């Protein structure tokens, strides 16, 4: 079964990471990625730009365009993984590995995927860090 692991954290705190802390944390997270890829379980992964760059279209009789995400929360959706896991336990284990690689504040929402359409983007359209 495919699970989405949605990563929530305070983007203020992420924005205050030192370069060293950033590089070390990312190296640990990429190691988790590599392991999942070797096991053939890694789907698409995305890291999102800050919510200040976001725009929300609120549906309704009259559509409403809002700057930023619709709800003001202390933690923001910062990115996600799509991962193949045999059980919820396996998905939780993966989330725990991510938490270990990137300890501190924040949370991971583990959400089973109902429908999945693989990427059809040409390579040059994919932003890399």
């Amino acid at each position: 079964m495919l699970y989405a692991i949605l990563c929530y954290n305070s983007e203020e705190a992420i924005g205050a990471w030192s370069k060293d802390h950033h590089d070390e944390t990312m190296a640990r997270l990429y190691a988790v990625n590599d392991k999942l890829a070797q096991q053939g379980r890694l789907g698409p992964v995305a890291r999102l730009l800050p919510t200040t760059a976001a725009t929300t279209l609120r549906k309704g009789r009259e559509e409403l365009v809002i700057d930023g995400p619709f709800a003001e929360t202390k933690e923001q959706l910062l990115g996600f993984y799509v991962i193949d896991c045999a059980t919820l336990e396996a998905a939780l284990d993966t989330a725990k590995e991510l938490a270990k690689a990137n300890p501190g504040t924040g949370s991971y929402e583990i959400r089973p995927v109902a429908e999945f359409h693989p990427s059809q983007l040409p390579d040059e359209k994919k932003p890399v860090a």
Partner: protein
Amino acid sequence: MNDLGWIDPVLSAARPQVMGALLRYFRNLDTAEEAFQEACLRALKSWPHNGPPRDPAAWLILVGRNAAMDDIRKRARQTELPDEAVLSDLTDAEASLADRLDGEHYKDDILRLLFICCHPELPATQQIALALRIVCGLSVKQIAQAFLVSEAAMEQRITRAKARIGNASVAFETPGAPERAERLAAVAAMIYLLFNEGYSSSSSREAEARTPLAEQAIWLVRLLLRLFPSEPEIMGLTALMLLQRARAKARFDKDGDIVLLEDQDRSLWSRPRIAEGLALIDKAMRHRRPGPYQIQAAIAALHARAPCAEDTDWAQIDMLYANLERLQPSPVITLNRAVAVSKVRGAEAAYEMIEPLGARLQGYFYFHGVKGALLQQLGRPQEAHEAFSRAIALANTPAEAAHIRQHLDRLSL
């Protein structure tokens, strides 16, 4: 996992909100700073064992306020502080109360804190130093290093700034809409000034020392944008800074000399920063309330969008500069526009545009550089030589002078 690297960023991120709230309680910068320090010390003791509280800012406000009040009380009689463990157990319950108390205030708390740092009675250098110390939480040593001055001199600058603010009055009531707009504009101006302090370096070594200034400015402008997510000018300023900063790696060559925009290796530009800057300027434009930051960001965006220098949309840049000139008439803007005009309508039209600026920009290095380049294109090498020589005499740094000297070499008189 013994990695506690996450704690510092959480403390830094919470700092503006916590300092803002503590300043509202105690109405004194030093007391607020001491209370914040104390709260951080306790966090460093408690968080590694208990994990992060659900709302770190609320935790720090509560603990800092209690510590400072306890300190005040202690002077009268000896009162025991609750045990650390008890305190952090309590905080989740109490945090929601603190949150209610502070949630509605926090925008104005942070804005006030920022605004105090750009108090009109403070000279710009003191405003920036104070903001870096109070809001960003940089140490005096770090600030001194970035400004390339001694620690003692920086300490004195900050102490003076605090003394001046102590004597001046700052309104603590919730500001009305016009006052809030005024505060916002003053804070935005200070942040852009700070950014330029970090950006305007003219050698790679200086740029490296000053990098923290530009990075802190970006951190501050993002903070401001989170507080006012629908202000197009704040989006514009954030976009402008991100788009300029995206070029940092391409601005100097191996020898540490400046590389002009048109000669930069665009593959060195930071793509995530450009993406964020472009997203923000797009958002800002939808509001149809143009302002100087948005226009400058739109110009930077056109450069960022061009795959190579030859693809730059100079006609659009010329038009944007014309708008900027109308909003904010200044000979420097006209000079910048002339560069765009030279690409669209030729050197003759550009030269006509800058000639009348001579009187006002006589002492401006860049003016003589542009003038020389235009005269060169117009086939007037003698006069170009004169302008370039003047520019070299006015150069602020060896790198600037070296750059003009290249032009002189090409003149082959």
